[in-house]
C-alpha cells in the first residue's frame, strides 16, 4: 500500500474538479487531484457542446436574462433546484466565469467583424472554437492550467472509499493506481467529490467509460445523504449506429449563427419534434423531446432504442457547417448532413439528483466532505454552474481547513479496504461470472424495468433483480486474468459493486416519489404533483445500513409552476 498525504483531495478531473483544484491553489491550499481517467480527457465535461449566455451578457435583453434563468430552473431542473443558488451561480457566471476563461485563452468563436457568434432566440449560446466541440477546448485549457500551476495529480487512479474517523469526519481516501495495480492510501482532512453527473447504468449512456456511480456510492457509505436520484435525464437524439457511439448526438439545440435546429422524424417519416416551432425557449429541449418520443412509442411509430430519425436536411448545409462540427458523424458513416437523416436512440444522460449538499457552501453533512458539480443533488451538471460549485467548494475548504482537526489515517479501515480490493482481484471460479457480465445484467434490468415507462410493479421487480445480482452474482465474480498491471476487469469488478448499490438506492428513490416530473415518468402516477412532490426526495443512511426517507420543500422565490397537478406528458418540461 502506497501512502500519500495532501491538504485537500479533489476526486475528479472534469470542469468542477479542475476548477476546485485551481481555486484551492490560488488560495494557498495544496490540493491533490485524483482522477479515475485522465485530467481533462475523461469525464463528461468534454461533451459540453454549447456555452449558455447568461444574464445581460453580450447584449441579452432583460427578457432574455429572465428566459435564461427560467430555462435553468424550469426546463433543466424541473424546479428541483435552490433558486437562490441558481441566481448566485448565474451572477458569478456572468461576472467571473467567462472573463476568466477568455483571459486564460479560450477562443469563443467570432465572426469576421469580431462579434461572438450566438444563435437567435430567447436563450442564446456560444461555442468555444466550434459548436459541439466546446468542452474539448475548455477541458484542454483546464488541463493546461493545472499543469501550469504545478498542481499534483494521480491519473488513472480510481478512488474506491472515503475513510472516516470514529466521529464520522473525513480522514482520507483509498484508491487504486490502475497502471501499477497498487493500492494507495491518501491522508487528508478535506475531500471534494467531483465525479460527475452520470453513471453507466443503462445499455446506452452518455457517460464516459469510467463513470460508474463511484462518488455517490462512496459518499453514501461515508454517511452522506442522497436526493432525487430518480430524476434521470435522457438524450433522445443520439446516433443509434455504430453501437459504440452512444453520445454522438444530432444536437437538437439551435445552431449558432442561425435560429435553426435538428428535427426528429418517426418511422413513417413524419416530423414529431421541431425545436424551432415546438420549444423556442428550450435551449436544451431534452425533456420535451423525450415526451414527444414517448407519445410516438405509444402510437407504435418509434421505439426508445431506435426506429426514429434525426437530421438537418431541412437546413441549408452551409448553415450547419459554418460554426459546428455536426457533419462529422454523418461523414464518418458515409452520409451527407445536407440530405440524410440518421437513426437515433435514447441514451441515459444527466442524473439530476445526487449527494445532498448545502448549495451555499457545497458542504455535506459529513465533516470534511464537500461536493462540486453534477454528483451533487443540488443541480444537474451544466458546465458553467459546476465550475461555480468548484469555486464555492474550494472557498469553503480553504475556510474550514484550519478548523478541521488533523488526524492519522485509520489503519484498520485502510487495511480492510485494501483487503476488499485485493479480494476482488481473484481468478474466475468455475461457473464464475466476469464483471462485464454483471454490468450487462444490471443494464438489462435497468433498461427493461427502469426505463421511461415504469410503475411500482416493474420497479419492485427491478429491485428484486438488482438484489439478486448482488447476492448471487457478486460472490461468483472473478477475473480471467489476475495481473495487477492495468487490469480493467479488476476495475470493472470494483465498479460493479458501486453500480449495484447505487442502482438499488435509485430504484428505492423512484418508488418513493409517487408522481411524474420532468424526464421521470411513472404510469401508475402519471401526474406532475406540485402540491406534494415539489420537494427533495431525500435518502438517509440508517446505522443498520438501511434507508430512511424524508422530504424537504423548495423555496420558490423567483419562478414557480403555474399549475398544481397535470398529466406529465402534457407538460412541456
Amino acid at each position, binding site marked *: 500500500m502506497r501512502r500519500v498525504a495532501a491538504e485537500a483531495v479533489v476526486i475528479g478531473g472534469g470542469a468542477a474538479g479542475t476548477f476546485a483544484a485551481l481555486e484551492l491553489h490560488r488560495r494557498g491550499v495544496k490540493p491533490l487531484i485524483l482522477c479515475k*481517467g*485522465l485530467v481533462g*480527457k*475523461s*469525464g463528461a465535461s*468534454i*461533451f459540453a457542446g454549447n456555452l449558455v449566455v447568461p444574464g445581460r*451578457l*453580450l447584449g441579452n435583453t432583460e427578457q432574455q436574462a429572465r428566459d435564461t434563468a427560467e430555462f435553468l430552473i424550469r426546463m433543466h431542473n424541473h424546479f428541483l433546484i435552490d433558486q437562490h443558488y441558481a441566481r448566485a451561480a448565474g451572477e458569478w457566471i456572468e461576472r467571473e466565469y*467567462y*472573463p476568466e476563461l*477568455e*483571459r*486564460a*485563452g479560450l*477562443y*469563443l*468563436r*467570432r*465572426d*469576421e*467583424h*469580431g462579434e*461572438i457568434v450566438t444563435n437567435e432566440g430567447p436563450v442564446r449560446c456560444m461555442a468555444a*472554437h466550434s459548436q459541439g*466541440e466546446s468542452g*474539448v*477546448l475548455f477541458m*484542454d485549457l483546464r488541463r*493546461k*492550467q493545472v499543469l*501550469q500551476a504545478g498542481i499534483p495529480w494521480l491519473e488513472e487512479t480510481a478512488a474506491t472509499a472515503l475513510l472516516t474517523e470514529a466521529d464520522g469526519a473525513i480522514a482520507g481516501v483509498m484508491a487504486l493506481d490502475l*497502471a501499477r495495480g497498487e493500492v494507495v492510501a491518501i491522508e487528508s482532512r478535506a475531500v471534494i467529490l467531483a465525479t460527475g453527473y452520470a453513471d453507466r447504468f443503462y445499455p446506452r449512456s452518455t457517460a*464516459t*467509460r*469510467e463513470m460508474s456511480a463511484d462518488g455517490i456510492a462512496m459518499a453514501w457509505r461515508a454517511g452522506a445523504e442522497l436526493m432525487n436520484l430518480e430524476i434521470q435525464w435522457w438524450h433522445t437524439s443520439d446516433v443509434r*449506429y*455504430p*453501437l*459504440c*457511439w*452512444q*453520445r*454522438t448526438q444530432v444536437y437538437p439545440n439551435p445552431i449558432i449563427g442561425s435560429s435553426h435546429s435538428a428535427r426528429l422524424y418517426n418511422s413513417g417519416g413524419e416530423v414529431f419534434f421541431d425545436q424551432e416551432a415546438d420549444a423556442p425557449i428550450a435551449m436544451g429541449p431534452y425533456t420535451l423531446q423525450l415526451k414527444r418520443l414517448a407519445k410516438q412509442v405509444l402510437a407504435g411509430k418509434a421505439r426508445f432504442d431506435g426506429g426514429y430519425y434525426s437530421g438537418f436536411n431541412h437546413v441549408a448545409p452551409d448553415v450547419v457547417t459554418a460554426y459546428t462540427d455536426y457533419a462529422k458523424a454523418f461523414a*464518418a*458513416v*458515409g*452520409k451527407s448532413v445536407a440530405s440524410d437523416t440518421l437513426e437515433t436512440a435514447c441514451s441515459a444522460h444527466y442524473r439530476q439528483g445526487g449527494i445532498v449538499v448545502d448549495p451555499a457552501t457545497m458542504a455535506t453533512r459529513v465533516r470534511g466532505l464537500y461536493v462540486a458539480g453534477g454528483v451533487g443533488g443540488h443541480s444537474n451538471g451544466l458546465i458553467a454552474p459546476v465550475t461555480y460549485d468548484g469555486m464555492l467548494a474550494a472557498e469553503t475548504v480553504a475556510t474550514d481547513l484550519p478548523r478541521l482537526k488533523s488526524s492519522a489515517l485509520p489503519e484498520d479501515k485502510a487495511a480492510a479496504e485494501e483487503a476488499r480490493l485485493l479480494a476482488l482481484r481473484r481468478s*474466475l471460479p468455475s461457473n464464475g461470472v466476469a464483471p462485464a*457480465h454483471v454490468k*450487462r445484467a444490471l443494464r438489462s434490468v435497468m433498461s427493461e424495468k427502469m426505463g421511461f415507462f415504469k410503475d411500482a410493479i416493474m420497479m419492485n421487480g427491478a429491485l428484486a433483480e438488482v438484489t439478486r445480482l448482488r447476492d448471487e452474482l457478486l460472490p461468483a465474480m472473478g*477475473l*480471467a*486474468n489476475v*495481473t495487477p*498491471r*492495468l*487490469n*480493467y*476487469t479488476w476495475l470493472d469488478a470494483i465498479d460493479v459493486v458501486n453500480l449495484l448499490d447505487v442502482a438499488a438506492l435509485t430504484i428505492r428513490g423512484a418508488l418513493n416519489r409517487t408522481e411524474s416530473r420532468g424526464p421521470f415518468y411513472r404510469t401508475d402516477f402519471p401526474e406532475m404533483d406540485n402540491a406534494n412532490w415539489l420537494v427533495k426526495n431525500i435518502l438517509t443512511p440508517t446505522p443498520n445500513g438501511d434507508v430512511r426517507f424524508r422530504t424537504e420543500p423548495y423555496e420558490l422565490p423567483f419562478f414557480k409552476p403555474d399549475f398544481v397537478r397535470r398529466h406529465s406528458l402534457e407538460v412541456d418540461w
Partner: protein
Amino acid sequence: MAERPQVAPAARNFGRDETGDSPAARLARLKEGDTVTAHISRWDPGTEPAPRFETYRVPYTKWMRVLEVLTYVSEEIGGDLAHRWFCANRMCGTCAVRVNGREVLACWEPVEPEMTIEPLRNAPVVRDLVIDRSGYEQRVSGLVPWLERREPYRGFPEPLTHPAMAAADKALDCISCMCCFSACPVIGLGDETKFAGPAPLVQLARVALDPRDGIDRGRIALERGAVFDCVSCYKCEEVCPVSIPIVTGSIEPLKALAFKSLPRKSRHARVFLAIVRSRGRIDPSALVLGVQRLTALRHPLRVLKLWRHGKIDPLKTLFGFRLPDIAQIRQIFEAVRGGSR
C-alpha cells in the same frame, strides 16, 4: 516484436474516395451477419518477453467501429484485453491504435473484414494496446503551450476577429490523440533528435499563431522543439483523424517564426536558402551535409540507402549542378530581401 500477419494495408487519409477507402465504400464491404477477423497485439511487459498476435473473430454489427471489436474481445472472448478509451466520440483522443499498420482512433475508424490491431509507436507499452502517454505529455508541457498575453486582458468580450484567429484555428482541432506522434519517423529516431514531434508542435502553434500571444514562440519552437528536424514527410497529416494540416498549418509557420526570431541559430533554414540561392533549387545531400556537417557521415549505411532510393545524389552535390536560370532566381532573392527590409 512478433511478425504482423499480412493483411492489406489501409489507404491513407488522402484520396480515400479514389482508392475505395471512404467510409461509405468500406462499410459497403461488410453486412450484418459477417465476421470480422482481428489479429490483436497482446503483451504484458511485466511477465512476458515480447508481444504476440492473437486472432479473434467478432460478429459484425451495422457500421461497426474498431472500438466495438476491442470491447467485444475484452468482454466476451479475450477476458482481459487492455485498451484505453473514454468518450467513443472523437473527443478525448485516448483510444488511438494502429489498424493494419496505420494510426487511427478506434472509436471513429470503421472496421476492416480482416485487420491487425497494435498499440501506437514511439511510446512504451503498458499492456496490450495501452501506451504510456507521459513522455508525450512532458514534451507538450515543455513547450509551455498556454497563452502568455502580449497586452493585459481587456475584459469580456475582448476585441478579436475570426480572421485574426484563422491561422490558429485549425490547430485548435487537435485532441492530443498521438496518432501523428506515433507515425512520425523523426520521433522514431529516438535520442538522435530533440524534435518535439508533430502534435506537441501543433499545441505550440495554437498559441504561437494566436494574435493575443506575446512571447517569443519562435525561440521555443527552435530551442525546445527542434522544429527544423521535421523532414516534411507528411506522415502526420496522413494519419490525423481530424485532418489538421500539421506540416503546412503548424510546423512551417513555426519554422518561419524561428527563423525570424533566431536567424543565426536557424541553421537548417539558412543552409536551405543558401543552396537555393547558389544552385537554383534544393539539393538534399547538400542540405544534410550543410545542416549536420560531419555527423551526417556517422551513418554510412543510411547514406548508401538514401542514395540507392534516389533520395540523395552525392555526385550532383560534389559537381555542383546549377539551374540554367540561376541569375533570375538570384534576382528573386534580392527582390524578396529588398521587400522585407
